[in-house]
């Protein structure tokens, strides 16, 4: 892997991504953001994610695809045809990592079986990312985001806090977008880079990642609590006090876990008489009287501007944050100072700001930017292209 010293972390790493799910595409996206050359193998009609909502008004372009495909290249390849197989073979020849989310029963016909790939490309890291994994009794089950968030245990626990208090009889609520699939995707990227690390010792190998497993992994504390003897439920999984509060102009998240933070909160509230009560110095007593404390906080919050509250709170050392809208995030001062976003040219010609990556490498900053790859923009040839540095 020849690369210059200031090159990005994964310069020289060549990834073939064959993905129709957000999990598979996000794995490739993380690797691309860190400088890997990621080529999407797309069917002739284009990857399904190109049509996945949310769609942008006017152009009808997928905002989701623009986010997930930024920094990748596109190659059309019909894996059910001999030509397509030829392209696949040639692309894998020069690749370090293959990310595939094809359903198990469809793999053999596409030349994507574990054994076939392992025999032909012994140095390749072959990552399978499926809703329920590629082995185990439910490996052939399929699932979309809403199914997977609930199969991994987190869905059942949502919402908690204020949303649950307001609407206790409603069905559980999912997290926005593709949270479960992003966990599966980041776990697939982790597994891919781990297996790649071991290539000098053991050569390539097959890695089986499951979105359900990943959701469970990030929800590990609920399983830990079950081991401690308590079953979590959205009605009871809440902080005894603190949480979401409505203020003037928006919502505030407030959470005090340490003694000094409680003292600072009392200060923030203007040292009201109720909070000075001797018994409330005991954290256990505060937990017991959480509802009462929250009533006081709620009343106080409702009289103040959200921006003032978070400003005062952070100055006093009370952990508090405004629930920011996407517009506030994308135009945020902090985000701008950190260059979290970079311009991407959309297929329709417009320019959008796209999140570069949720981590920074201070000794070799990531660039981001570029454009959303047009379908099949790459000529299907390419030992040369694969070793070019990524823009």
């Amino acid at each position: 892997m020849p690369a210059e010293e200031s090159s990005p972390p994964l310069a020289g790493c060549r990834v073939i991504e064959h993905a129709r799910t957000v999990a598979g595409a996000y794995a490739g996206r993380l690797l691309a953001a860190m400088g890997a050359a990621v080529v999407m193998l797309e069917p002739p009609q284009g990857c399904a994610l190109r049509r996945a909502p949310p769609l942008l008004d006017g152009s009808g372009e997928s905002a989701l695809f623009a986010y997930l495909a930024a920094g990748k290249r596109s190659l059309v390849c019909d894996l059910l045809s001999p030509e397509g197989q030829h392209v696949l073979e040639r692309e894998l020849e020069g690749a370090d990592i293959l990310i595939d989310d094809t359903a198990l029963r469809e793999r053999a016909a596409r030349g994507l079986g574990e054994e076939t790939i392992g025999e032909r490309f012994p140095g390749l890291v072959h990552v399978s990312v499926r809703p329920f994994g590629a082995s185990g009794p439910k490996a052939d089950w399929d699932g979309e985001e809403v199914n997977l968030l609930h199969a991994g245990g987190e869905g059942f626990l949502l919402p908690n806090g204020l949303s649950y208090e307001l609407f206790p009889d409603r069905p559980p609520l999912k997290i926005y977008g593709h949270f479960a699939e992003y966990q599966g995707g980041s776990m697939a990227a982790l597994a891919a880079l781990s297996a790649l690390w071991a290539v000098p010792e053991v050569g390539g190998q097959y890695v089986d990642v499951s979105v359900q497993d990943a959701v469970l992994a990030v929800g590990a504390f609920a399983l830990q609590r079950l081991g401690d003897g308590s079953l979590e439920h959205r009605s009871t999984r809440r902080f005894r006090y603190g949480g979401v509060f409505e203020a003037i102009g928006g919502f505030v998240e407030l959470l005090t876990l340490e003694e000094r933070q409680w003292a600072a909160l009392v200060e923030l509230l203007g040292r009201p008489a109720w909070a000075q009560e001797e018994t409330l110095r005991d954290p256990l007593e505060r937990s017991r009287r959480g509802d009462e404390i929250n009533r006081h906080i709620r009343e106080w919050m409702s009289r103040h501007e959200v921006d003032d509250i978070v400003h005062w709170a952070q100055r006093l050392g009370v952990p508090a944050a405004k629930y920011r809208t996407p517009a506030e995030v994308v135009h945020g001062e902090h985000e701008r100072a950190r260059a979290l976003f970079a311009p991407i040219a959309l297929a329709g010609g417009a320019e959008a700001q796209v999140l570069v990556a949720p981590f920074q490498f201070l000794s070799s900053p990531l660039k981001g930017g570029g454009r959303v790859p047009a379908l099949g923009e790459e000529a299907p040839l390419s030992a040369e292209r694969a070793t070019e540095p990524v823009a």
Partner: protein
Amino acid sequence: MNRAQAPLAGVRIADFTIHAAGPFGTQLLAQLGAECIKIESKTRPDAFRKPHAVYGRMSAATFDQVSVNKLSVRLNLKHPEAVALAKRLVSISDVAAESFRAGVMQRLGLGFDELCAVKPDIILLSLSSCGQRGPDSHFAGYAPLFGAWGGLGWMSGYSDGPPLEMRHVMDHAAGIHAAVATLAALHQHRRSGKAQHIDLAAREVASAMIGDALVQASLGLMPARPGNRHPSMAPHGVYPTRQPDRWLTLAVRSDAEWQALARELDRAAAARDARFVTARARLEHAVELDALLTQWLSTCDADLTAERLQRAGVCAHVSWSMCDIARDPHLRARGATTEVSAPDIPARLAVGAPARFSKTREVGIRRLTPSLGQDEDYVFGELLGLGGAERRDLERREVIL
């Protein structure tokens, strides 16, 4: 389980992380085979070593997921000699990881530059709520605040309700991303031999989970909070069944899947109903459709229905509690859940291997929660070469504490 047979065998991490997000990330690397040495002290015990009343836990945790596979040593970092020992530990490590508020490592004398002075090619992972740089970098926060700052909290929630409070999954999502970035830096190091400082802001991981909405917002659009609805799928959501608090999740992606759903639920008339024949029609009549499904499923067994629908090619799954997860043979077969026990810990389930590897198979839990300082013979004695008398002296002077 033999660490030599794991993919990250040979990688050593000096782990200064505390709470949930950072330790979860290093725990993943430890499950993948890295040797992870947790540096802690009696004076500033980590969250799992003390009661946590806000979470309803009244004593220290006996088993703590985020500390599995880790070695523990004590160093009282307020003492300059302890800082010097910490640096020696870093000098024989590949990675140092920390999750303090920005600036704390520098104040301790363990900032990136100081670490580079003792280990010129160190990889330092700094995980914090708001990052090492930027106007908010001094802000402290926890998972619910990451979600609030990052926009994920705003986008989640009932359409007519308040934003949603994110919990531990947000910490741990940051932890996975931290582990990914650390591995990328290791690859870079293998190639270049250079040092690297990773700056991960957990709130930006929350933003990464709404990357699509941020694209919309950058173009002046105002993405709406969709709740359980989906812009192109109907039916889509979480539905009550015959059993109380036993919900069925459904996502119908195509007309064929709609037909299959109607057939499996014996609703031939609905399958022909013009209001529901195409995806566009179903989206237009989503409210009526949800009401019908709620009615139909009210007599159905959730688990049997999920299995039947899966066989018919419809994405369905019961909303699982941790009891369901704990008794699931699929997760057990995959090693995603694994039984752990110790003399003081009755058998219980923990979250195991993050993935299944065909060659480097020994991925998973090898040791449970370390007692404070339990690995000092190995780390201080063998690795740093400190003699018994020297260590006793350091303990007496509360350098090791």
